[in-house]
């Protein structure tokens, strides 16, 4: 039995009491099985329901039809074991960057109970992560003092710090330049192979999807369905050089083609 399973999930935004016109069918009969420790990428046209899918898996949103199960249990409330990076960097404006990154440690066990004792250790962990994403020295800044890309990186740290077993990343690198982005690919790949957590990555960069993921799922235009799932069998560890190899480029082109098909529908 798969670790995460979506069976025939529909999601309709807008309450039942509203008129049908203002309701939106965002995700339609999505079916997906994700193994423990899998690295998954989801691609699809803008507005097709990718972010919604992540929210369904994390339990932030309850399906209108069908069920989501994680680890054999039906998801009826937000999971406690996910790390989530949202599409818009939602840093808390009243905390500095370091305190923002440390937020999960104040909520999630076992860190929470050891908060007082491990205060310094936690600070160090945050600073180490910040350095990894190129934000060394920005821990004391407030969120609005950071550029868009820097905020996004800080948010990534927040999603990672409590070492969640499921990592849900919604276009985590969208605001980054190519170099920073590729550096973070490596960081993420290392992390995943080391920790063996389950990662679901939403992205628009097909190279990113192919570089990082074991499976890439293509979603159709709204209402989003899974159109196609490609298994990426490029050996690991993948390097930037791999991305220029013909096999890689072919895979990217193939995905591109399918997204194009999905969009036209």
């Amino acid at each position, binding site marked *: 039995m798969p670790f995460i399973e979506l069976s025939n999930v529909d999601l309709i935004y807008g309450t039942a009491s509203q008129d049908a016109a203002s309701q939106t069918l965002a995700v339609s009969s999505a079916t997906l099985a994700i193994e423990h420790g899998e690295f998954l990428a989801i691609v699809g046209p803008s507005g097709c329901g990718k972010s919604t899918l992540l*929210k369904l898996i*994390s339990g*932030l949103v309850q399906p209108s039809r069908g069920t989501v199960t994680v680890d054999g249990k039906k998801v009826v409330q*937000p*999971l*406690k*074991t*996910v790390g*989530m990076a*949202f599409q*818009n960097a*939602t840093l*808390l*404006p*009243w*905390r500095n960057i370091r305190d923002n990154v440390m*937020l*999960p440690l*104040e*909520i*999630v066990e076992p860190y929470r109970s050891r908060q007082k004792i491990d205060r310094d250790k936690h600070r160090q962990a945050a600073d180490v992560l910040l350095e990894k994403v190129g934000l060394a020295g920005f821990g004391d800044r*407030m969120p*609005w003092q950071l550029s868009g890309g820097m905020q996004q990186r800080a948010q990534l740290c927040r999603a990672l710090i*409590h070492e969640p077993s499921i990592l*849900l990343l919604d276009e985590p690198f969208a605001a980054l330049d190519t170099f920073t982005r590729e550096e973070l690919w490596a960081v993420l790949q290392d992390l995943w192979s080391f920790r063996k957590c389950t990662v679901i990555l939403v992205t628009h960069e097909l190279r990113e999807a192919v570089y990082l993921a074991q499976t890439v799922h293509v979603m159709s235009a709204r209402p989003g369905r899974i159109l196609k799932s490609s298994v990426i069998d490029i050996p690991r560890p993948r390097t930037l050089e791999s991305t220029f190899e013909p096999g890689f480029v072919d895979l990217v082109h193939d995905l591109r083609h399918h997204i194009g098909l999905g969009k036209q529908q």
Partner: protein
Amino acid sequence: MRKLQERLAPWVLTLALIAAWWLLIYLFDIKSFILPTPWETLQAIYKFRYPLFLHGMSTLATTLIGFVAAVVFGLALGILVGSSRLAYSGVYPLLIGFNSVPKAALVPVFVIWFGAGTIPAVCTAFMLSFFPVVANVATAFATIEPELFEVMRSLGATRWDITRKIGIPRSLPFFFASLKIAVTLAFVGSVIAEIVAGNNGIGNVMLVASSNFNVPLVFAALVVVGVLGVGMYAIFDFFERRMTAWSIRGGDALVQTIGG
């Protein structure tokens, strides 16, 4: 430069107001039994500085107890009302109804229950001042951006976690605004209660003074309450500047536009 201007502004404005007060008396030849001059008021403050101080402290103590109770209660009720639609629609109308009623009318009832003394005044200060806290905290909680909630919910945070780490910090600017409203009302409440049924405090001073035709002393007492209010404001301001700086990073954004 700016900083200095800002520091001076309240003093300059106070002086301007006093000047206006004086001018008013001068121009309209207002009798001192109606409105004393600032100078007469100052003299009364000096002459009665000792009782004014003692009664002022008594009023301050009464006010503070009622105010603190109001803040704690207001915060709790505000969180409840702001977090649940059902509580909102159920409790709000009642709160409005209750608060439209002049509390002075209820003071005698409290005297009969709790005896003469401080408790009725504390109750009045409390009753008068908790509602602004409820209203602002409720509105702040009801308008929290769902994105912030989602951050917390995705971590499996409890309701209390969310309240503490999102709700309260985000409400702080309006919580402070409500504190300022509430503290003025707490003063009004305790003074009114002292007038209606107190043995101590500034309200009592006002009553005795007016029965002795000592209008300057009545105004001196009013000035004392005003100064106590401003003192409380200074304390809030100190904390507000430290705790809500994040929310006013915009600073003078609107003024900058055109250069006010």
